[in-house]
């Protein structure tokens, strides 16, 4: 049985992360938490149609200045690495959208004139779709920093033994916020030059974060990029493949789940699930994730 926290990422966008995450959540027999961490464009709910139970704001701390205590010395401005503070007529003013909540200004202030107040940058919604607990993060329009909202989503993971994380595309800060500390990372790719290129980047990211990972080849049979050769050379397990099938796209386009209606898809997903569970169990038995350069199972 699959257990632990499994993140699904890809490097390239549109390879099938969400499709895999929602179908996998439905295919599992046990209760499962699904965290939609693609907070700039969450879409897992379109397929799972959860009944939302509650929402909680996602906030970041930003400084406010006590005019009684502030002498206008400007140390807060000097120490702000993000240029978020300006000083006009000896009065500091913060531009909250530039603030990264590092707290340096609090440390720098010699007069304890700064305190932090929460600023809402997104919303986390929690609901259920059958036995699937769905947690969705949504970054407010106009906000630039998604990692704090992603972290707020991850804090809402339930007590279910299996947590699936639908990560955003790419390999930058939001993806790292979504996958950091998970037990296993599934990289969804497609056999195209773009898929392979971005898979390579995602594998480098996983190595840097020391997360064990395996690959699912989606739309197999489409294109002829040497994804399998790459995986073999890197010692990355290919956990399964889903054959290219336009019917999957048709089912997706009406917000339905191919795992419910397409037997071939179900068979391939079940094979993947079995292999993934085995792989995750193996990795959990490792004393700790292998040292850099001598990773026993993942020989990259």
């Amino acid at each position: 049985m699959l257990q632990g926290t499994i993140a699904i990422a890809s490097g390239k966008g549109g390879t099938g992360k969400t499709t895999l995450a929602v179908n996998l959540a439905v295919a599992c027999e046990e209760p499962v938490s699904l965290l939609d961490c693609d907070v700039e464009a969450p879409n897992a709910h379109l397929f799972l149609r959860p009944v939302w139970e509650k929402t909680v704001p996602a906030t970041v701390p930003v400084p406010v200045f006590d005019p009684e205590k502030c002498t206008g010395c400007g140390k807060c401005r000097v120490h702000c690495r993000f240029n978020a503070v300006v000083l006009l007529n000896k009065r500091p003013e913060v531009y909250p959208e530039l603030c990264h909540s590092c707290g340096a200004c609090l440390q720098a202030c010699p007069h304890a004139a700064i305190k932090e107040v929460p600023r809402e940058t997104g919303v986390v919604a929690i609901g259920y779709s059958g036995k699937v607990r769905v947690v969705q993060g949504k970054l407010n329009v106009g906000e630039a920093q998604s990692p704090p909202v992603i972290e707020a989503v991850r804090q809402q993971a339930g007590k279910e033994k299996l947590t699936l994380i639908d990560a955003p595309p790419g390999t930058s800060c939001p993806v790292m916020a979504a996958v950091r500390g998970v037990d296993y990372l599934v990289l969804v790719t497609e056999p195209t030059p773009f898929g392979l290129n971005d898979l390579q980047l995602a594998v480098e990211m996983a190595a840097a974060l020391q997360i064990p990972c395996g690959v699912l080849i989606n739309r197999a049979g489409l294109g002829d990029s040497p994804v399998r050769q790459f995986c073999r050379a890197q010692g990355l397990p290919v956990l399964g493949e889903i054959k290219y099938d336009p019917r999957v796209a048709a089912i997706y386009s009406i917000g339905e789940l191919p795992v419910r209606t397409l037997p071939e898809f179900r068979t391939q997903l079940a094979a993947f699930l079995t292999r993934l569970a085995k792989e995750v169990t193996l990795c959990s038995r490792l004393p700790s994730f292998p040292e850099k350069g001598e990773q026993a199972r993942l020989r990259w």
Partner: protein
Amino acid sequence: MHIAVTATGQSLDSPVDERFGRARYILIVDPESGLVEAVDNQANVNAAQGAGLNAAQIVVEWQAEWVLTGRVGPKAFAVLKEAGIKIGLEAGGLVRETVERFQAGEFKAS
């Protein structure tokens, strides 16, 4: 009176840098007597964010009464306004010519 002109070089014969926040230099000029100081703005050229705010801060600290530049972003614009600094936009050519145009009253405060 001091005015601030964004420039790609350190002298009055340098071209105007049309970007405000990420201008290479901010020239502090006394229109009567000439160049006062060429403030190096390299740190803001490379800043990940907040370049305009920092450049505005420089202008505020020099107590310039005008900024002459090409364009100013919304945050820097707000800071300059709040500090009571007048903004002359769509400056171009050489700094010297820009200062002459300024003295001829060709800039309207935005």
